[in-house]
């Protein structure tokens, strides 16, 4: 099994590397391939089980788009085919939309794979603790960004927040889940913090496990954090 990590030199900004480090311990026989900025993504050349891309600076978003635009017509069918699982976390998801609007009103063209758009608002930083429902599981996590995203229809949203906001301050719908694409503003150790989600992901990859590595310790951390969400007057940012 091949797992491709896109642009780790500039796309592992907020502890996101932890997910792949952990996954490599779940799947010791899997081959993890790092694709560099000036290389053609491996998933466009051969079969890859999982493509992972995560948080980056706004400058890096534009750098990556400048490299990926040439492949956008090849990427679209890959998403539809549903053979490869895509996991985009943090602001990586913004690359998939129509455009990203800068603070001065100018626009950066996105890959156009979906109709949504994102609007940057630096220096205002939007920090957001999140507790959300995905299928029958409760996900916990965090998002931190300079932008909001608008125009994702509810039927393809990834999860619904119970605490915290979704893609923008006016919605509880968070992320995208369609076919085998999962894209979410949740960042950092999304997998490690959510053992049930690891089980889901491994099953999607065709490698379900009865027990994942360090599951007891992970569940202890998860349970403690879940209790903290019940703090009175919890500050989300």
């Amino acid at each position, binding site marked *: 099994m091949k797992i491709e990590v896109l642009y780790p*030199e*500039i796309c*592992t*900004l*907020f*502890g*996101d*590397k*932890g*997910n792949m*480090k*952990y996954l490599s*311990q779940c799947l010791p026989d899997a081959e993890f391939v790092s694709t*560099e*900025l*000036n290389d053609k993504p491996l998933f466009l050349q051969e079969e890859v089980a999982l493509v992972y891309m995560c948080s980056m*600076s*706004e*400058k*890096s978003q534009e*750098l990556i788009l400048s*490299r990926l635009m040439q492949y956008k017509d090849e990427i679209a069918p890959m998403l539809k085919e549903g053979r490869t699982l895509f996991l985009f976390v943090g602001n990586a998801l913004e690359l998939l939309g129509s455009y990203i609007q800068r603070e001065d009103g100018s626009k950066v063209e996105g890959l156009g794979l979906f109709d949504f758009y994102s609007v940057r608002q*630096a*220096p205002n*930083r939007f*920090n957001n*603790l999140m507790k959300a429902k995905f299928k029958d599981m409760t996900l916990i996590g*965090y998002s*931190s960004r*300079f932008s909001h995203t608008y125009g994702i229809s509810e039927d393809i949203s990834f999860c619904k927040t119970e605490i915290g906001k979704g893609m923008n301050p006016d919605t509880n719908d968070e992320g995208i889940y369609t076919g085998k694409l999962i894209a979410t503003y949740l*960042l*950092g*150790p999304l997998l*490690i*913090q959510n053992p049930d989600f690891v089980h889901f992901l491994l099953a999607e990859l065709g490698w379900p496990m009865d027990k994942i*590595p*360090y599951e007891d*310790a*992970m569940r*202890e*951390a998860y349970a*403690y*954090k879940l209790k*903290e*969400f019940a*703090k009175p*007057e*919890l*500050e*989300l*940012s």
Partner: protein
Amino acid sequence: MASFRFHVALVAAKLSKTVIRLLGRNGTHTPGVIAQKLCPDFLAQAPKAPLAICVTGTNGKTTVSNLLTDCLEKSGKSVVSNRTGSNIVPGCMTNVINSLNWTGKCRVDATVFEVDERASRLILPYVNPDYLVVTGLFRDSLKRNAHPDYIFSVIDTYCPDSAKVILNADELCSSMLKKNSQRVFYGIGAQPDDKTEPYNLIADYQLCPECGTKLKYNYLRYHHIGDVVCPNCGLHSADKKYLATEINRENMTLTMREGDTETVYPLIHTALFNIYNEVTVISALREIGYQQEQVQELIAQIHVPDSRHNETTVNGVTVIQALSKGQSAVSSSRTFEYVANEEGRKAVILAMDDLSDRKKSIEYSGWIYDLEFEQFNRDDVVQVICSGPRCYDHKVRCLIAGIPEEKIQVNTSEVAAADMVTLDGVDRVYILYDCENYGMSCEMKQKIIKRLEEGK
């Protein structure tokens, strides 16, 4: 000329400081808040000291500004600095208030400001420093600082062009600051232990900022610190006016080259990050105009502040408090490496959880996946005690780093965790604490010392 409002604000702020002092507190924050409320442009109106220096950067700014203040004072100058106060606007305003007499005239020779890098947009344009010293830019709290590209844009935009900028040439991001200002660079030249490929968990700026090509390191020290060249467009690290050429940890000396001249200075600490701090201080003093001989004498009289690192030995066991900044993976990874490589059998207590987040929020723990817990996966680290509300997250991180479960203990209370250290057969006990947890770490240290004295 300062306005009537300014003078009212100054007097009110000074009076508040007097009252706060009578109450037994330092008054390093509130006078600044009062002055700002009464006169929002107080900083802009305040007369400047003959010498104004601002120090900013992700890591090392406290140490550098404290050492710089010490040196200036020991050279005979009257100096005020915000060393005991905050490094955001109220702390810097209080610093200015302290530099003025009751009539609003400057009463000191120099002001040194430690400036929070994100808050620099509200400080640098008004303090209008003669020198801006930048230690380097790294990842820090994602909530506060987002990422280094953002902090770069803040400093680059808001630092007045008139300031002379003293930059670390070994840190590519900050070394590109203020291209149109007068700039000088410092750095540490090639050393025997250097690498040429990134080897840490994180290394930002591996790509050329001009063309996106992967950079080549002539030498790499840690993370992205080193001397680079782009094989495609030729971009390279800046030439260093102040270059450390030899670090001699046995003789505790540091050789610096300036042009054709080599000068040997006392080495004040063996950890590389503190050597960078010392090189920064030496470079700043030289730029200000001190002769090499004067700088040698001044450096010989200073030491790294106790609040950053101190140790006490009781019955053969040394208890060490070492700063390990929460949410700052680069700085803490360097502390972890330093601790891991110290001699003897070590027990480590982690007390890096944020003090304010624990009250009403839940601290973001993702940063620990950028932090090199792997450093503690070695035989001579015999115990790792994860303490604080995030202790369960830290335990998982330890396990992923390969640390055997039997070596790991958890306690949601830092102070209670001090009782969990097994002192038998341990040579050194490290309390790694976040800046805000210093008081707590002192309490932990006292508990351990008491146990050692009582032979428990």
